[in-house]
């Protein structure tokens, strides 16, 4: 039976315990489909449980290929979840939201003007002063008398939910750095791909024209009349909860993603540090919370901001969107006074009702809250975002009474429900789950415009408002002729300028992209080679085989440390392979290199085509398969697939513009290749008898991807001299040291700061000369049981490559020291 039909049937069954207090987004009280779904009924009727599961699987894969993640504070990023069933809203129902949100944005703008200006709201007692001033969102350094900015609000987001009657209500406002638009865009992209017929049939508002409006709002927000203002997106970095959202928005808007350390203030202007020059920044779309934006005037311990930013803002020399004081609008206490504020500032009555809210600093409200504590959610004002307190009522009462002005209580609305697949898929059912919608508003010309769409949140049933998945929000058109987003004139979003790849941080990230990609690749090849030796030894246990196995596994241990649980006796090779491939916490493991690669790529996400995230789609799936199947063959199988994933980076870089960043990837790659080669060749420093040596050499050749070449050149005569010649000196073997150093030198020379005589170039040239003068015959010469000259050579090579990498970092990645407060240096003496 089609999933939706089953959902309807289940809902219209007599309810156990009569729990039908929620408004259902799909089914009316009469048991019939609501109008927007009625229109889609024909298409939806064809979708059964199997089909929906297939769609759900596709969604998971698309999101993973695009690298869409979200992280809760302090946790590793997890996959973003999108429910396959969209939240569909018809034009009539959305109209009230649209008008209400346009008014709300004007209201929020007026509140900012007032609270950072005359403060009539406080003076006239419309809002109690303590309710506003107790909230950290009120930024006093933005409230100087000299400030003058009539249009401080450029963008805002509002969380909405429907109450039991189906009326949309405001749950809260997000104004300082609203997140979610990037996710909403991705949700739409994925859902339109996996539900093409439904998407076509629905005739909904496409999102892209809104991006154009958003982009032009940012450009127009610049102070003064600038022909071509520079806009950047300020991110706290890849460890932010919504790093993906920030990067996706930046990429979609065509504005570069920068971090605080990329910017500097001079003469009250904000400038972007680019090698050799400073470029003025006119607009900053910030995703850094205000407190962290300026170590001079706000939190002095912040490394995420720009010293002097607040002063630049006060002088109207840069536009920060939204302004540093906008966090005041996220104060939930304001919701309690919203109708009065609207009357006071706009002379209108408030259109969109808010969730009933009480500020406990008011004696009457306090009495009400204490009487109804079990029905209310209580939030503390003095932290941002104000968390819902999950404490026993006695404790809560005591806390509230100790400082009533610090608490706000809100009614727990029975939010509307919608069919959700992600939660019930194991049963093959769509189950009703409460939902809320984050709506986005942007200043458009002289008014505000709301996105016809949004980011839907599926909340868990326990009522803790924890978001368990997201939904795409489809706002249907009122008629066939209606333009998308109601915007008649639609200009394409130009790709714009991304961050010039000469910003030191970008070059550094690129260098590490090269290094980690190479490190992961080389270790995977070694794992595969080792796996062959293991399998061979398992089927034909011989003493010699045991020794070669030890040597090859020793190589792995040399690169990735010893397995934390490895015993001395009977090695569990499968466990070792699993650990090398899967253990993220093991230094030097494949998993760790892949994570580090992901991190480095995320730091410069706006430099990449979306294809780059497929690497991780492939690797993550191989990892998941391996986690499920403990079989021995699975290690080789998964390692092989991971290798395919990692190698696909080359396909992406092949299509990159040849800028300094591109060259830096190669510098990193070839330096790392030299290092890995050095580790690999230590296997040749000791002799163990002809049979063992031959097997070890074969593994080394395989790990260095040079078996075929070797065979062509030397037939089956595997000798140390031949192997060393091929891997060290052969200028035509792309895996050789000579080749790697030559390429590293070429790419290094192409980076702007290189002159031909810089320290990294000198170090590299000396290394090339030394290699040229090295005689392989001397290296293989025997002294006792080992090859002393080879040992010396490899040690020196390792040290020289390390020095080279340091020199590259010093010259090309240095951004100068981090900001420090006066007096934060150890003070030797204080006089008097």
């Amino acid at each position: 039976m089609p999933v939706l039909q089953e959902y309807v049937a289940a809902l219209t069954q007599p309810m156990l315990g009569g729990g039908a207090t929620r408004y259902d987004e799909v089914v009316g009280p009469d048991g019939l489909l609501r109008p927007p779904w009625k229109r889609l009924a024909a298409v939806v009727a064809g979708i059964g449980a199997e089909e929906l599961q297939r769609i759900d699987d596709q969604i998971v894969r698309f999101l993973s290929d695009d690298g869409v993640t979200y992280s809760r504070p302090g946790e590793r990023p997890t996959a973003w979840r999108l429910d396959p069933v969209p939240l569909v809203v018809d034009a009539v129902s959305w109209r009230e939201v649209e008008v209400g949100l346009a008014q709300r944005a004007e209201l929020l703008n007026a509140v900012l003007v007032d609270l950072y200006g005359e403060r009539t709201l406080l003076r006239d007692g419309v809002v109690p002063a303590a309710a506003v001033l107790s909230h950290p969102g009120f930024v006093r350094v933005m409230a100087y008398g000299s400030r003058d900015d009539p249009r401080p609000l450029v963008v805002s987001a509002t969380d909405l939910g429907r109450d039991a009657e189906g009326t949309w209500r405001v749950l809260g406002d997000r104004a300082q750095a609203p997140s979610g638009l990037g996710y909403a865009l991705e949700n739409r992209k994925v859902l339109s791909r996996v539900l093409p017929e439904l998407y076509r049939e629905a005739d909904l508002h496409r999102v892209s024209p809104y991006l154009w409006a958003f982009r032009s709002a940012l450009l127009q927000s610049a102070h003064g009349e600038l022909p071509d203002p520079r806009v950047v997106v300020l991110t706290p970095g890849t460890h932010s909860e919504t790093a993906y959202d920030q990067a996706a928005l930046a990429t979609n808007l065509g504005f570069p993603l920068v971090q605080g350390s990329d910017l500097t203030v001079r003469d009250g202007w904000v400038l972007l540090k680019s090698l050799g020059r400073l470029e003025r920044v006119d607009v900053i779309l910030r995703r850094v919370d205000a407190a962290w934006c300026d170590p001079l005037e706000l939190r002095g311990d912040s490394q995420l901001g720009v010293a002097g930013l607040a002063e630049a803002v006060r002088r109207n020399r840069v536009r920060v969107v939204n302004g540093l004081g906008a966090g005041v609008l996220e104060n939930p206490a304001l919701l309690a006074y919203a109708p009065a504020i609207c009357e006071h500032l706009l002379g209108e009555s408030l259109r969109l009702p808010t969730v009933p809210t009480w500020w406990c600093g008011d004696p009457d409200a306090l009495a009400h809250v204490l009487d109804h504590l079990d029905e209310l959610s209580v939030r503390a004002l003095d932290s941002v975002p104000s968390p819902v307190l999950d404490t026993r009522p006695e404790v809560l009462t005591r806390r509230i009474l100790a400082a009533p002005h610090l608490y706000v209580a809100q009614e727990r609305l029975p939010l509307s429900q919608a069919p959700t697949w992600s939660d019930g898929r194991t049963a093959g059912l769509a189950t009703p789950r409460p939902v809320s919608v984050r709506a986005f508003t942007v200043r458009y010309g002289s008014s505000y415009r709301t996105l016809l769409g949004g980011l839907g949140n599926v909340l868990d049933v326990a009522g803790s408002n924890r978001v368990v998945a997201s939904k795409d929000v489809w706002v249907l058109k009122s008629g066939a002729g209606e333009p998308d987003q109601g915007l008649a004139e639609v200009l394409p979003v130009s790709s714009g300028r991304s961050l010039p790849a000469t910003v030191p941080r970008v070059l550094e990230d690129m260098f590490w992209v090269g290094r980690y990609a190479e490190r992961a690749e080389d270790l995977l090849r070694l794992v595969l080679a080792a796996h062959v030796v293991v399998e061979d030894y398992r089927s034909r246990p011989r003493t010699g085989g045991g020794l070669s196995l030890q040597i090859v596994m020793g190589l792995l241990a040399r690169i990735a440390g010893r397995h934390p649980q490895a015993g001395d006796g009977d090695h569990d090779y499968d466990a070792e392979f699993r650990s090398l491939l899967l253990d993220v916490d093991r230094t030097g493991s494949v998993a760790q290199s892949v994570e580090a690669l992901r991190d480095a790529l995320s730091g410069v996400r706006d430099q990449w085509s979306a294809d780059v995230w497929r690497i991780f789609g492939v690797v993550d799936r191989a990892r998941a398969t391996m986690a499920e199947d403990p079989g021995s063959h699975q290690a080789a199988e998964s390692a092989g697939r991971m290798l395919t994933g990692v190698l696909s980076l080359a396909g992406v870089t092949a299509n990159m513009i040849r800028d300094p960043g591109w060259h830096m990837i190669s510098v990193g790659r070839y330096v790392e290749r030299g290092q890995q080669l050095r580790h690999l060749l230590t296997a040749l420093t000791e002799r163990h008898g002809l049979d063992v040596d031959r097997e070890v050499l074969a593994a080394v050749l395989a790990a260095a991807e040079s078996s075929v070449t070797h065979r062509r050149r030397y037939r089956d005569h595997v000798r140390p001299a031949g192997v060393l010649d091929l891997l060290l000196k052969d200028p035509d073997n792309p895996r050789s040291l000579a080749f790697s150093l030559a390429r590293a030198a070429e790419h290094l020379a192409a980076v702007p700061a290189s002159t031909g005589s810089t320290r990294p170039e000198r170090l590299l040239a000396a290394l090339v000369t030394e290699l040229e003068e090295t005689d392989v015959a001397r290296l293989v010469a025997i002294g006792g049981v080992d090859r002393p000259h080879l040992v010396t050579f490899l040690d020196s090579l390792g040290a020289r490559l390390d020095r080279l990498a340091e020199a590259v970092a010093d010259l090309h990645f240095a951004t100068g020291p981090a900001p420090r407060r006066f007096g934060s240096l150890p003070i030797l003496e204080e006089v008097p």
Partner: protein
Amino acid sequence: MRYRIEHRTTYTYDDDVTDSLGIAYLVPRRLPWQQVGHYRVEVTPAPADTARDEDYYGNELTYFQVVEPHRELVVVGTGDVEVATPTVDRGLLDRPWDGLLPLARPDLPGAWRATDLALPSASVPSHPGATEYAAESLLPGRPVGEAVGELMHRIHADFEYDGTATTVTSTVPEILAKRAGVCQDFAHFTLSCLRSHGLAARYVSGYLATEPAPGKERVVGADASHAWAAVWLGDDDWLALDPTNDQWQNDRYVTVAWGRDYGDVPPVKGVIFTEARHSRLEVSVDVAPA
């Protein structure tokens, strides 16, 4: 009294500082009892950018940025001030203190403005120890002048002035535990006492002119910056008290700036970009009768 003031702050570093941004609160406020003559703030090396502004509390601040590499940064505030003893209407002091609480009585004239200074702040958190300490003096219905005066006497008697006891970053619990501190700590503790009972009180930063010991010459530069507190009496009226010296503010006190606590109005604060590992700070203040 007329004074000629020079407040000199010198930072010395063991390596070049390539960029230094700072904010100085060195220019005294213009007040009914305080006239400020020509006043200058000079920074050496010469800043590439400098600006004057008035902050949220109406204090004058100086913003500067030095981009020339330097190993020594000198900030000097200098000028003339004429000060009288602030007068407070006797009637205001006789009103019960517990009728002057901005959060409980938001309807009082000016209460909305005073609210900011009745709330806890970064360096003046509400602290049960301070609440308890102050309760002995803040008895219900007691006239505000008498209650606050007694609190001031007690703090002066119970706490020891000790320049080595604290650093700039002492917290209220630390001050309370040690029962000792410098003027800043006395001020922060007093504020914590007053605010934890709902009174509005502000941190005042400035100078106290010292008199040489009998028969001794005045030593130039031996003065220091000083800090004290003021409690709200309703409307725009405040009563300033110096718990360090157990006295009400008089014509020897030069008011520079006020705010919620030290963090709002440090004489000089800033951010530097440098590889230097050590710095040396030298402060000299001279308040000379003129």
